[in-house]
């Protein structure tokens, strides 16, 4: 008898037990497969359904909520392609379009930090490439357990090294991101990678297999056993307390332990990028999809389901790195650096010639049919025969959700009861404590390992509020990008916390002088089977959809990462929100650095924009100085965010601003310190009202700006016209951060406190 499980055998041996539970399918799901097929699935079909119906690929628990993004989307003339594609596409004018997306690689990065994080970069880059765009930059939002925890010492350097290894080799500048620490991420680090790409309007590619007779070509790396069941199964299962990467799912019943985490080859990815762009330019592709989680299974079913509807695939034609692989493993393999294209028969030779030029391996593995069936053969025998939409669409769950009782207790822990610094010396000490805390300390230890310059169009990069890229040299057209998330705010109130993350990213983009245009998101949560987590998720999605509607920026795509928990302890709900903006002229960009005074120049005037209330729930001050989490997060005010953003863009366009910095974690105190350190220039401020509230409150909708000498009157008029409260609080200059009547801190002391933390934790930045 053939060792391969064929459709004929499945029909003949209907009662053979199938290892559906081991592959993560429930009995209900398995029975649904049997009902769809009218027989038991073959091992190949079972493998295919198991990965396609995993949480990671099917969004089965989140789908019913995510629909709000489309339903509540504000009218936007900028959207060329929205949700449902690999990534959304946004019109930025002058014939250019931008596509961007953020995706999680949390679980692989915990198991094997270096390769897990590296392949996270590789995966999101292929998503962007598949849209027809040239990838031009990456960003990374990283969250780890306590900075001093021994395991953080294993995970963080590995993750940063992996991102550095992959992104630098690929030739993509890393222009920003986040780094934060919290005990809730111990055992569940968050590694969210963003990529942005640029194309001309006509360059948009589709992920559909259309036109019967067209050939299906798999190109890029050969397929190996790495990552069999990797992302799709890993990201769909909760780690036990002994999480060791032993989660394994070999559909062939092979007992061999295989690495669950994929291994990255950035040079091959670089060749794949250039090869694809040349294929697109030559008009050689009618449909294309990247291979990520669930590999060939996902690409074939999704391409077929989105196109004419049928496909014939010869699995034995897939180039292999390991000749022992059978159909189930080939379908599930998550080998990196692969793409699948649909090509007219008459263009196949040209297609293969371009691949040969770039040393990219390519193989015709099948063709589009009009049978409505996805049929797969293995040396002439049929091993799969399914309606592709049944696998691509997957189940849909309305998971139970319940606001946990602990929310009330948390809200009752009012930060107003915390002891506040009594005098200037106390305020000074708290500011230094914040600046030296791992989440707010200088991040050069991390960011110096990334190439922020490559491609030569980076105008702003970390530690600026947002990354800013030049798109067009002649006009100065550019794009700005920022990601933000705040697990503490979201733990206190996931609806408001998500709107605060959105507000902060929106404000960060605006601070450069760009106009926010569109939103992507990476929703990191615990297990969807926990009603409390599901409530957090539903609230976060509702908050984001409502927030985007209020700000007039549509969600163009995103990613959901569930099962971020160890045992029954879930991470803080952590939606990470990415905002894209367009900058009309990057030569008028505004950075966070206070301007160096040259000779007899008058100092720049510092203005505090927005309104400050005593809001300390979830604040960095409560967290760092008291280890406290409780109360209510700051109240977002989306109308004021809009007004502030419009003011910042107008003032940048008029050339009125020497610097702008958004106020967020650590409030005005931390923002002033960062701007001083970035510019190497001090400042002197006089604060209205209670200095503690003025310095450390985290009220939303605020920024501090340095107005160029002579521009005060014009800026004041502009602020009034935009309805933004603006208070003159001081001037730049000198070599200390001075708060009149409270304290003065020399820049050298600020710098020492700010820069020593991460090297002390993770090793010296420079030798010797």
């Amino acid at each position: 008898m053939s060792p391969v499980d064929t459709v004929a055998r499945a029909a003949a041996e209907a009662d053979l037990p199938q290892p559906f539970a081991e592959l993560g399918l429930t009995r209900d799901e398995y029975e649904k497969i049997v009902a769809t097929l009218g027989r038991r699935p073959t091992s190949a079909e079972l493998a295919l359904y198991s990965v396609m119906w995993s949480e990671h690929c099917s969004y089965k628990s989140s789908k019913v909520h995510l629909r709000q993004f489309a339903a509540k989307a504000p009218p936007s003339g900028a959207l060329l392609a929205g949700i449902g594609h690999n990534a959304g596409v946004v019109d930025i004018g002058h014939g250019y379009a931008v596509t961007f997306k953020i995706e999680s690689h949390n679980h692989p990065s915990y198991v094997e930090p270096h390769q897990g994080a590296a392949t996270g970069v590789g995966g999101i880059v292929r998503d962007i490439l598949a849209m027809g765009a040239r990838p031009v930059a990456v960003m990374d939002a990283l969250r780890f357990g306590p900075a001093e925890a021994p395991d953080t010492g294993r995970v963080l350097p590995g993750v940063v090294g992996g991102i550095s290894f992959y992104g630098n080799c690929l030739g993509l500048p890393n222009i920003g991101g986040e780094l934060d620490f919290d005990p809730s991420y111990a055992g569940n680090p968050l590694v969210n990678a963003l990529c942005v790409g640029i194309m001309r309007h006509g360059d948009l590619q589709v992920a559909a297999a259309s036109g019967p007779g067209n050939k299906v070509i798999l190109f890029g790396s050969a397929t190996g056993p790495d990552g069999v069941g990797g992302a799709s199964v890993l990201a769909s299962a909760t780690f036990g307390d002994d999480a060791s990467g032993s989660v394994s799912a070999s559909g062939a019943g092979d007992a061999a332990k295989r690495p669950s985490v994929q291994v990255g080859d950035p040079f091959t990815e670089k060749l794949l990028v250039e090869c694809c762009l040349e294929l697109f330019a030559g008009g050689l592709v009618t449909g294309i999809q990247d291979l990520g989680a669930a590999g060939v299974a996902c690409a074939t079913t999704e391409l077929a389901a989105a196109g004419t509807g049928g496909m014939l695939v010869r699995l034995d034609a897939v180039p292999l790195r390991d000749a022992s692989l059978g159909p189930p493993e080939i379908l599930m393999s998550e080998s990196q650096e692969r793409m699948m294209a649909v090509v007219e028969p008459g263009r196949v030779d040209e297609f293969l010639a371009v691949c040969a030029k770039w040393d990219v391996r390519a193989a015709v593995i099948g063709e589009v049919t009009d049978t409505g069936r996805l049929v797969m053969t293995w040396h002439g025998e049929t091993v799969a025969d399914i309606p592709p939409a049944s696998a691509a669409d997957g189940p849909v769950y309305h998971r139970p959700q319940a606001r946990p009782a602990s929310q009330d207790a948390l809200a009752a822990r009012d930060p107003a009861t915390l002891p506040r610094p009594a005098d200037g010396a106390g305020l000074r000490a708290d500011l230094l404590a914040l600046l030296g805390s791992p989440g707010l300390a200088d991040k050069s230890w991390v960011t110096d390992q990334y190439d922020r310059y490559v491609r030569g169009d980076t105008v702003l990069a970390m530690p600026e509020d947002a990354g800013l890229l030049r798109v067009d040299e002649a006009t100065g057209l550019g794009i700005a990008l920022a990601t933000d998330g705040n697990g503490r705010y979201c733990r206190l109130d996931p609806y408001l916390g998500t709107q605060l993350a959105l507000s902060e990213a929106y404000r960060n983009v605006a601070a450069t002088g760009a106009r926010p245009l569109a939103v992507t998101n990476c929703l990191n949560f615990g297990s969807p089977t926990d009603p409390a987590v599901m409530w957090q998720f539903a609230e976060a999605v509702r908050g984001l959809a409502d927030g985007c509607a209020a700000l007039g920026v549509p969600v163009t795509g995103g990613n959901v990462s569930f099962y971020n928990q160890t045992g029954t302890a879930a991470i803080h709900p952590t939606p990470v929100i990415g905002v894209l903006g367009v900058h009309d002229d990057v030569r008028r960009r505004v950075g966070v650095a206070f301007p160096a005074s040259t000779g007899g120049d008058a100092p720049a005037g510092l203005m505090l924009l927005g309104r400050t209330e005593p809001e300390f729930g979830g604040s960095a001050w409560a967290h760092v100085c008291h280890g406290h989490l409780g109360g209510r997060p700051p109240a977002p005010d989306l109308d004021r965010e809009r007004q502030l953003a419009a003011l910042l863009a107008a003032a940048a366009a008029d050339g009125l601003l020497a610097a702008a910095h958004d106020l967020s974690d650590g409030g005005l105190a931390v923002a002033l310190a960062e701007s001083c350190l970035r510019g190497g220039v001090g400042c002197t401020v006089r604060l209205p009202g209670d200095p503690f509230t003025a310095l450390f409150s985290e009220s939303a909708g605020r920024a501090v700006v340095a107005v160029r000498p002579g521009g005060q009157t014009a800026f004041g008029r502009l602020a009034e016209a935009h309805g933004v409260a603006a208070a003159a609080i001081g001037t730049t200059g000198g070599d200390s951060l001075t708060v009149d009547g409270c304290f003065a801190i020399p820049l050298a002391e600020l710098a020492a406190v700010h820069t020593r933390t991460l090297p002390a934790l993770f090793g010296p930045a420079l030798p010797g």
Partner: protein
Amino acid sequence: MRLAGAEPVALWHGDRGLRGVDAVILPGGFSYGDYLRCGAIARFAPVMAELVPAARSGLPVLGICNGFQILCEAHLLPGALTRNAGLKFITRDLLLRVENARTAWTRTYSAGEQIVVPLKSGEGAYVADPGTLAELEASGQVVIRYAGDNPNGSAGAIAGVCNAEGNVVGLMPHPEHAVDPLTGPSADGLGFFASVVAKVAA
């Protein structure tokens, strides 16, 4: 090169011809992923078969970062580049000192001039045997030196060297990222490109 007033021409690694160019820049990057030794495979690229004799005959050649590594592997320049002393990739804007302003690529600078140019590499520690180092110092073949921090443990804080004739220069920092203050820390790197344009025009 365009900013310096010349016309850039792309050369394909797999071609043999140099397409009549007046000078060649081997840019940075990760040839063959740097999976073996940096530059060790690229030195065998077909285009190198033309480039090596042309360089030996006086063609101005500049190797930046991976290009420098390739020139060392091809024995057009002495020494080698090894892993940074800190064993991590480093991106930093660095203060450099132009030690030799007579080469084809540095003639618009003055000797001793200090410039700010980004460094971004993981294997940038310059090494050579003591005899070679002494000879480089004595003959003025040290072109660029780290003037502040020695970020990667390079011997003698050497950031760039040239051949005896001064037409072939290699350096780890990236002058092409310091040609416009909009996209770099300075415009100090433009001099490398202006130098060769002046040299070719002369």
